[in-house]
């Protein structure tokens, strides 16, 4: 800019036209590679190598897991050249992953009809997945519109979910926004995909290789097909003290799926259904609100339309007590629901209900403490304690001797008065088995380090009819910068004890420690080595080594 007056002065006799001066000013700006200057790009990659052994609960099978997980991400922001976050903004985001396990042997991953004694359907040496890859436009038309196209993730009260498709968001000036999306759910077995985000309950993947020709082998393992999906959301926008969001999502299964699990008698094959059918359809609402001086409240629910069941409901109240202390109450109702292709929806009877009281405080700027205690209630239709005896009585084993025989030798549950007894609502009153839950957490920070403590207890009560076991223990960990920005050391010790009345031979007490140095040889590059040594009576000593290299290019 300053060049112009001097130029003008030097050629004063030439008396340039005003438009030429303007052109001289504008041209360099117009011709410079503005995009190259304005676009912000970032590349990040991480390689994590792990080596450890997994021992079967029976002690005989030992998996040597030799894993190498590599992620590579790329993002480019401000494609429009404007770095105002409130203005229209265009960006690209891609992240890929290879999750290789060199411990998987050939017989496990590749189907061989002549020897399938080790084959695990769906297992792969090194699955590659596109975690996300999308183009996004935000704040278009003064903040009215946003668009996202590609593989993307949504997070809302319905849970984590990814799909390939498009999402449009309309933000109104009237304190609410509307979203609509459509595409295909990410499904394991399809290219560049992982099953992580599918609805639960269906064992699904690529029935490739020889498996495609042998439907009677692993009939529960379904061939993955495209899963069309769409949904919508309405969300509050603007006020910070309250936020509500309603979500709806419907996903379809397509392609074929075996129905019968056993070949038809007389050498018949397996039956199959095909075509579009519901995979899952859910709607939910979540609300959070706060009064900054008082506290906050939150609540929400998820309703599974296919299962016609409330899948999840939760609520919480938090109150401020003094400057840096909060107390709260949280409750959650959880009933597992599944993909509509799965039979498990029809086995889900009762929710688990969790209620917790909590307190969190920060007695000093460097020390934070929190604690929770409460219960989780497990519900059954009928009383496990006396059901068997009543069942025998209903079946006609009326005398003590007959009842003893019934309990010892069993009975036929599908016909007769015992079957009626099992189905009768009078026999199926709700019975609760409570677990006690408690946890404690503390974090202490100092200039170049921090220490944290976490401890938790989950324990049941009563006899075998209600006691669901116990898990109790805690972890102390610390992280200290030795040469800030260059060298750090982390460490952790932990001990846990667990007990399961159904499997008392698997009770154990474990002690473990971890030493983890971190080195940053150059800026934005970090190498972390983690040595873990665990010991318990079941597996003796077990070791895990994890090395992680993280690189970022801003």
């Amino acid at each position, binding site marked *: 800019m300053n060049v112009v007056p001097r130029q003008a002065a030097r050629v004063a006799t030439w008396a340039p036209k005003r438009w030429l001066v303007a052109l001289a000013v504008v041209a360099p700006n117009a011709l410079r590679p503005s995009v190259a200057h304005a676009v912000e790009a970032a590349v990040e990659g991480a390689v994590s190598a792990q080596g450890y052994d997994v021992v079967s609960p029976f002690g005989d099978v030992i998996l040597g897991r030799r894993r190498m997980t590599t992620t590579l991400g790329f993002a480019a922001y401000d494609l429009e050249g404007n770095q105002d976050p409130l203005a229209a903004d265009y960006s690209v985001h891609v992240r890929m992953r290879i999750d290789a396990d060199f411990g998987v042997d050939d017989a496990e991953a590749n189907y061989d009809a002549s020897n399938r004694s080790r084959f695990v359907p769906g297992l792969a040496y090194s699955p590659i997945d596109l975690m996300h890859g999308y183009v996004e436009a935000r704040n278009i038309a003064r903040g009215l519109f946003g668009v996202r196209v590609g593989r993307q993730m949504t997070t809302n009260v319905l849970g984590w979910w990814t799909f390939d498709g498009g999402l449009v968001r309309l933000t109104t000036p009237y304190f609410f926004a509307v979203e609509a999306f459509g595409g295909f759910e990410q499904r394991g077995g399809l290219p560049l995909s992982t099953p992580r985000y599918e609805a639960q*309950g269906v064992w699904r993947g690529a029935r490739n290789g020889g498996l495609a020709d042998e439907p009677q082998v692993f009939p529960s393992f379904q061939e993955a097909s495209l899963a069309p999906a769409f949904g919508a959301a309405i969300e509050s926008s603007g006020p910070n003290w309250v936020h509500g969001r309603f979500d709806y999502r419907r996903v379809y299964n397509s392609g074929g799926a075996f129905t019968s699990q056993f070949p038809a008698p007389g050498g018949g094959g397996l039956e199959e259904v095909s075509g579009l059918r519901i995979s899952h359809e859910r709607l939910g609402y979540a609300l959070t609100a706060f009064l900054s001086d008082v506290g906050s409240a939150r609540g929400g629910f998820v309703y599974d339309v296919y299962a016609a069941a409330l899948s999840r409901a939760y609520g919480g109240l938090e109150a401020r007590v003094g400057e840096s202390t909060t107390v709260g109450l949280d409750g959650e109702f959880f009933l597992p629901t*599944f993909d509509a292709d799965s039979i498990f929806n*029809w086995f889900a009877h009762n929710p688990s209900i969790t209620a917790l009281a909590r307190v969190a405080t920060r007695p000093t700027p460097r020390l934070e403490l929190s604690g929770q205690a409460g219960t989780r209630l497990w519900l059954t239709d009928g009383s496990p304690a006396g059901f068997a005896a009543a069942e025998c009585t209903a079946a006609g084993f009326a005398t003590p001797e007959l009842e003893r025989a019934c309990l010892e030798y069993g009975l036929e549950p599908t016909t007769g008065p015992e079957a009626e007894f099992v189905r009768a609502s009078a026999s199926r009153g709700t019975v609760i088995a409570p677990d006690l839950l408690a946890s404690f957490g503390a974090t202490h920070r100092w200039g170049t380090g921090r220490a944290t403590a976490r401890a938790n207890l989950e324990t049941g009560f009563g006899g075998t009819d209600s006691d669901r076991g116990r*898990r109790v223990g805690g972890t102390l960990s610390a992280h200290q910068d030795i040469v800030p920005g260059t060298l750090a050391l982390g460490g952790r010790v932990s001990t846990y004890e667990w007990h399961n009345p159904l499997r008392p031979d698997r009770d154990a007490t474990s002690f473990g420690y971890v030493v983890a140095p971190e080195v940053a040889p150059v800026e934005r590059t970090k190498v972390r080595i983690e040595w873990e040594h665990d010991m318990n009576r079941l597996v003796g000593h077990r070791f895990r080594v994890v090395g992680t290299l993280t690189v970022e290019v801003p």
Partner: protein
Amino acid sequence: MTGARGLLPGWVAALACALAVVVGLAGASAAPTAADAPAAGASAHAATLGPSAGPSAGPSAGPSAGPSAGPSAGPAAGQPAEPLAAIDRRHGLAPLFGDTLVPLEWMPPGTSASPVPSDEIFPPQQLTIRFNHKKHVGELQQTCKVCHAAAYRSAKSTDTLLPSPAKTCDNCHDVDHRNLANVVAGTEPNGQCGYCHLGDEAGKGGRVAKVVVPAPNLKMNHEAHLRRNIGCAQCHGQIEELELATREQLPRMAGCFSCHARSAAATGDAKGACVTCHVTEASGRLETTFSTGQLVPPVWLHGAAHTPDWLDRHKGIAGANSELCASCHATEFCTDCHDGKVRPRDVHPDDWISQHAQAARQDNPRCVSCHQLTTFCGDCHRRVGVARDAPSANRLAGRRFHPAADVWTVAPRSPQHHSWEAERNLNACVSCHTERDCATCHATQGARGGQGVNPHAPGFEANCVDAMRRNPRPCLVCHATTDASLGACR
């Protein structure tokens, strides 16, 4: 005896403590007086040497200290000691005299939620002057603009809004700040360095301690706010009631929310989005790492304080308002745990593989937050031979994961029968069993190959018509198409 030798007797320690308290109290009350003499001396000394680095001076001048007081009139060495010492210089050292608590109604809006401003947004300051706003604004009827005129033109938070001493202080105080490398004190007490600048040696060697007010890590357009007729007090509180303005008079986020509540598409600038005020990275997410600490949500914001139990309870907030989380966190931050292939250590402690079965039994709702049961869990369970449909080479004859079949599988339903566990925690079943395992008994007899044990909950029929219409597949796993019992659901 040996142990006691190294310690003071209790009564000596108690006496020492009591004396220390008395001395401390006396010292505190005497401090301003004690400070006067060296300060006065320093100002005399400064006058002699010429203060060279006096960045500002807070005028606490009395009515006599008018603009006419000649700033160039340098005092003779030691001359003004007595008048300066006579002035009560305890004022202007704290928001209220004696550092008493400022009433909440005089504090910036939102102070009740955040008693002190965030260190990350407003880095600590070093205020080395005393200044009495109450006197200047109240008694002397000076408006905010007299000293902070720059705020009325300021569009950026990095602008300096403190007054220029030469243009403001010197109008009344007997001092010349025009050349900050050579500030010349006048003869009147209010023109001495020590009158406003703190420190026993204020002005000594021509130097005063520097006032440091770092720019906030925030976007702030004072001019735009003032143009909307938003007065100073609306964000800073009742400064005119206070003496020294400190960090405590800086705005609180809860106060900002009283106006910043509009959607991104609404007209006007008072948007509720975080990026309206917070400094952002190129990605559009908030800058969270500052030399003064890590920016985290305040304790009152949607219950999202990142307390030590945050891991346990973040689900309720993230599920309800993922945009709030996305203000600071990229998707990768979440997927590293929720879709991670490397075990998050804070969630799964050491020796997790050994204890995970019991954890899944008692804490199962949390497993499905991250894990697909039939693949993530099932693959490994098949490989180690736990799952019922594990490949034959991995299944070990005579080994059972569950209790013996006579109590686990066979009717009547004993306390250890699998049905109770399935009713309580079906997800745990699904982590090992495919539907073929269940169909073995629960499918109907005949074509479906089962034994006809009905697993349906009471009242199931009410929903089965709609369910079967929308997806008949699960029905047909256990029921043949010709099954009469399907008739009720067609």
